[in-house]
């Protein structure tokens, strides 16, 4: 957020500053909370997980001998009797990106120690995420109803079903984990745990509003991954 002040150390902008931070003692990322640094590195690792999934998907799609189904037909939804391609996915994407917006605002109000606004916005994010997962369940059940299975697919290559359920499932799992934590954090904000310094259930250590930002990083990442899945799976 605001530039940290480090005693006895001058923070400089640009590459020179980066080099000096790296060469200094104690910390490499000046003023960055441990948990925040951890989340960034975890997300880097998770990026590799999703990259492996998406690259495998590309390779699988390229090497299967059966024709790949047309996504705009498979994912079309009938609205008022007209099949609209990607209608549901467009709504899902909109909801998820909106929830990223509310998350960003929650972080802002968290640092301003505005308990009420922060709590409501975290709750709104959680509900947005829950809506997304609900719509995904709807999408899955629609496809299953139409006969798409992980091992077969009436529209073409069997790998379509396999990759679809695996990748959206893995992403949906990430969203669900995020939703659970969002609800927990919303409770913690409303209950004032970050102001009273109440110790956590598991770690028995004190919490801080920075946790909202750390969860926010995760949430934005899940959102970003969805954009890539959207581009590679639904638009290609």
């Amino acid at each position, binding site marked *: 957020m605001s530039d940290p002040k480090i005693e006895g150390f001058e923070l400089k902008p640009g590459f020179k500053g980066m080099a000096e931070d790296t060469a200094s003692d104690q*910390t490499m990322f000046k003023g960055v909370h441990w948990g925040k640094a*951890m989340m960034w*590195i975890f997300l880097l690792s998770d990026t590799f997980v999703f990259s492996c999934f998406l690259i*495998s998907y590309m390779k699988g799609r390229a090497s299967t001998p059966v024709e790949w189904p047309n996504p705009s037909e498979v994912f079309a939804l009938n609205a008022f009797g007209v099949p609209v391609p990607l209608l549901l996915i467009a709504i899902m994407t909109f909801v998820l990106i909106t929830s990223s917006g509310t998350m960003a605002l929650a972080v802002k109000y968290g640092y301003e120690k505005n308990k009420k606004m922060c709590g409501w916005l975290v709750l709104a994010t959680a509900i947005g995420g829950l809506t997304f997962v609900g719509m995904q369940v709807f999408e899955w059940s629609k496809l299953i109803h139409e006969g798409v299975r992980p091992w077969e697919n009436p529209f073409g290559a069997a790998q379509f079903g396999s990759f679809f359920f*695996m990748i959206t499932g893995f992403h949906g799992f990430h969203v669900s984990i995020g939703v659970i934590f969002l609800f927990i954090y919303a409770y913690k904000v409303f209950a004032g745990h970050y102001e009273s310094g109440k110790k956590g259930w598991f770690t028995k250590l004190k919490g801080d509003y920075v946790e909202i930002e750390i969860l926010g990083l995760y949430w934005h990442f899940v959102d970003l991954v969805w954009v890539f899945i959207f581009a590679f799976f639904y638009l290609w």
Partner: protein
Amino acid sequence: MSEEYDNNKTSYQAQSSEVLGGASGTTPSDMDYVRPAEIPEQELYHAHSFIEKWVFCQDAKVIGVQYFLTAVFTGVVGLILSWLMRLQLGFPGLAGFMTAEHYYQFVTMHGMIMVVYFLTALFLGGFGNYLIPLMVGARDMVFPYVNMLSFWMFFVAVAVLMASFFVPGGPTGSGWTLYPPQAILEGTPGSGAGILLMLISLSLFVIGFTMGGLNYLITVLQARTRGMTLMRLPLTIWGIFTATVLAMLAFPALLVSSIMMTLDKVLGTSFFMPTIIKAGEVLEYGGGSPILFQHLFWFFGHPEVYIVALPAFGIVSDLISVHARKNIFGYRMMVWAIVGIGALSFFVWAHHMYVSGMNPWFGFFFATTTLIIAVPTAMKVYNWILTLWRGNIRINTVMLWCLGFIVTFVNGGITGIFLGNVSVDVPLSDTYFVVAHFHMVMGIAPLMVIMGAIYHWFPLVAGRMLDEKLGKWHFWATFLGAYSIYFPMHYLGFIGVPRRYFEMYDSPYMTSGVGLNEFISLAAFLVGAAQFILIYNIIKTLKTGKPAGKNPWQANSLEWFTSTVPPEHGNFGDRLPVVHRWAYDYSVPGAKEDFIPQTTPPSEVANTEVEKT
């Protein structure tokens, strides 16, 4: 020894009071100035019960020992499996129960256990947990709770892996690379529950490791003590740190391939399964790509080699420097070589796949990158030798293991140049030459470092010195025995003996190979048995060993300057140490003693020719 110990103690206390004065501004000495702490004091959760102290413990040192013991347990299982394999190869039919299926299962489990559950867990989980907080001058890992979860996830992974010995059909027998389609098809031993448990265990291992790895990285990056810059870190930390970065980026590929193969097995998807005709019948699989698995597996598998090797490089650099009483030659070069090897290791994976039928141009590219790795690796070997050159070498057990490592690593490295070239690799592929190569370079060589490290750091962990005489017996039996095993294997490879074969029967190789095989097997029994000398030594030392005191090796790095030996929870007592120099100021001309600890302020050594770091 005891006299030096006392000297050390007083000089250490003098320093800390001086720092105290400096910080409060009464006697500011420009020369010794270290800027104030920017990280608040770490809040630690102290254990309240036996279970919290020894079972679900949040202290990185206890977690390190837990990792170490669990890894050693799996290592002993792997050792016994290798005995059974050598028994079959050297003396076919002697072990009556041994069928071809058993043999494949033992090969598979031996490989997977030794590479993942033994070496990786031992170096990163064991040495990493124990040494990182101590060497960077932190009270503990930055997320002790997550660290505890990491160990228990690893423990569950090991339990699941071991459970596969007891399920119907036994453990998987598909070779440690688990290549589909055969790994999950009927006819391969353990293609039912065995392979499933293996894949689940690997996934759990990756999840557990990720939790530990985040701790290691953030502790090194964000929790160093005052004065500890990255370029003052001991090379051990650089090795473990870089290996952890590799692991964080390479294990995702293993996780993804495990998940995909699990789905192939359980749900009948065809990610890796092509159309297969079995006994005239077309199976339900079809349209997948087995080569995709190989790419994913080796994108993990090659960095994995360096996940094991880089901590070994780092640790051996420190051991050589301490026991040759000389600064490490080319410290910065060593750091950049570690980082360079780590980066390059992501661009060489397909050299494991020269015979998989991929495009030959691909092989050309990967042969080039593979041979480029020889450059930073050779730099490191030269630097180790130049560190020894004209050093005040103490030929103790630790140094013997280090010398053994250098020789073994050069041997294994040179055969790597053979195998890195496509045209030489093709005829040698899948022969005992490959077995000999990787056992030399990533089996025996890192193991030598582990042994050296045990003899070096045991006095810190247990407070007692291991017996030198037994240690030397242990070393010579292991060293000579290991060479008796693997040198003849190179020859077996040249005459074309294929690996992974249960029995050679009357094949033409066997005219000259039978005697050799028996010899190798006998040597393998000997080397395995020699490891129990170490276990005996440890038990004996714990009971009657000579007390080590503080800093028995006259080393410089921070782990020897803890408030108590063995270090307590919180490591450094009331006050964290302040670092003024790198860890390699040995035999500095003009200095009173032949070592200057990292905590010695410059004003105390003003008249010496100490390096500026």
